[in-house]
């Protein structure tokens, strides 16, 4: 259910969250899909938003799409980015809530988050291979 106040999109754009915004299927989605994760994190924190999750998806071209989700006063905002090099800038120093999510994303999708002091395993054990959700079978 969309419970956004009137002029919500305008207020987002005035807050420095530019681009187009569309409410669809439970979230506000930003386009174009090329946000800079650290600048966005800084902006969201300055707006008192709550970090919710990172959702990674393996695209058919093997690029990994990363959806960063933030809650701003009850409105879920999704910022999309992608990487073909299995690398993304860490936001844990800006937002400690992202620590476990980044560690989990590394283990499931093999993404290395750069700028972290350490990346201890979270769900797997030391020495286990990473990227355990990758290389999916072809859906028939």
């Amino acid at each position, binding site marked *: 259910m969309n419970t956004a106040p009137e002029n919500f999109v305008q207020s987002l754009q005035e807050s420095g969250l530019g681009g187009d915004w569309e409410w669809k299927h439970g979230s506000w989605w930003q386009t174009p899909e090329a946000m800079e994760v650290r600048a966005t994190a800084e902006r969201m924190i300055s707006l008192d938003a709550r970090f*919710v999750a990172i959702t990674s998806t393996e695209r058919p071209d093997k690029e990994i799409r990363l959806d960063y989700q933030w809650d701003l006063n009850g409105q879920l905002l999704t910022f999309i980015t992608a990487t073909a090099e299995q690398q993304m800038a860490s936001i844990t120093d800006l937002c400690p809530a992202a620590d476990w999510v980044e560690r989990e994303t590394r283990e499931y999708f093999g993404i290395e988050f750069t700028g972290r002091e350490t990346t201890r395993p979270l769900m797997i054990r030391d020495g286990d291979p990473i990227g355990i959700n990758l290389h999916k079978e072809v859906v028939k």
Partner: protein
Amino acid sequence: MSYRIPIGPYHPALEEPYKLELVCDGEIVSDAVMHLGFNFRGIEYLAERRNYLQGITLVERVCGICSNVHSLSYCQTVEQLTGAEPPERALYIRVALCELERLHSHLLWSGTAAKLIGFKTVFMACFTLREKVMDALSAISGNRVNYGMNCIGGVNRDIVDPEAILGILDELENGISRTILPIFLHDKTVESRCKGIGILTREQAKAMGAVGPLARASGVGQDIRVAAPYCVYDRIQFNVPVETSGDVRARLVVHALEMVESCRILRQALRALPAGPIHTPTPAGARYKVPAGTAISRVEAPRGEVLYQVTSNGTDIPERVRVRTPTFMNMATVRLAVVGQQLADSPLIQASCDPCYSCTDR
């Protein structure tokens, strides 16, 4: 000289496995290192290899306590993609199930907390009351744990006798207001055991993205039922209890008051139950194809916000199923809450975060 105490993976306070290494200076905890994954089952991976109908059964097994919110969140995402809008009666039944689940989860937590406080009479009282909730859940769904209630476009079973559930609710409300509330809110023994320990400040809770009763006990007042209402929560009157001290006592108070509010919601939902069907007609057969797209659903589970993101590629098997559970965000706060505290208080502090490792590990 500091020393390390490994606790777990079999935990002294809780039934589920995780490991905590406490670094202590004398009796004071100076740091904590957490080890998870003992319950890791790869449920996201498995859900991407099963059709949508099998997925409902699978995600309901993420957690043995709040199983209903997982199938509800999953079904809500698929309903957004397919446009299968549940009928009104199904939405009220979903609310009733959510609140019964919250009640049994909070009573379970309250009993565990009381046992750790050393108040075993309250443990007994909580579990006696919890049995009434389990009776209600069993009467509605036929099951005590995995209810199998949600389907895409509604619910599988009706509440055929709301008056019987209201009767159970009267007994439950009476027990909560006469036994649990006075003890959790006013008892001096409970206060002296819980006040000022395991503090999680508002700033810490916000920085760690804490959710649910844990965050609300630290002054972060968001509740998804109010902030982003689903089902028919926007038509129901209830309060969201918030405390500001962030200690174990605040968590006791928030949980106790939330149980009262759950009874209030449940009563309204059962009394307003409209006539009509309980699900929309869905295409026959298990090969249920879902239009391509991505949808997100958020539900306020007993421990806080659950998020499901489902991406469909137009086939009968989801391309991506993302599950973010409340304890995944809340567990990391344990480190902040135990540092500087007495070693002997650490089991109670850990338990007071109401952790669910099955949810966390998935």
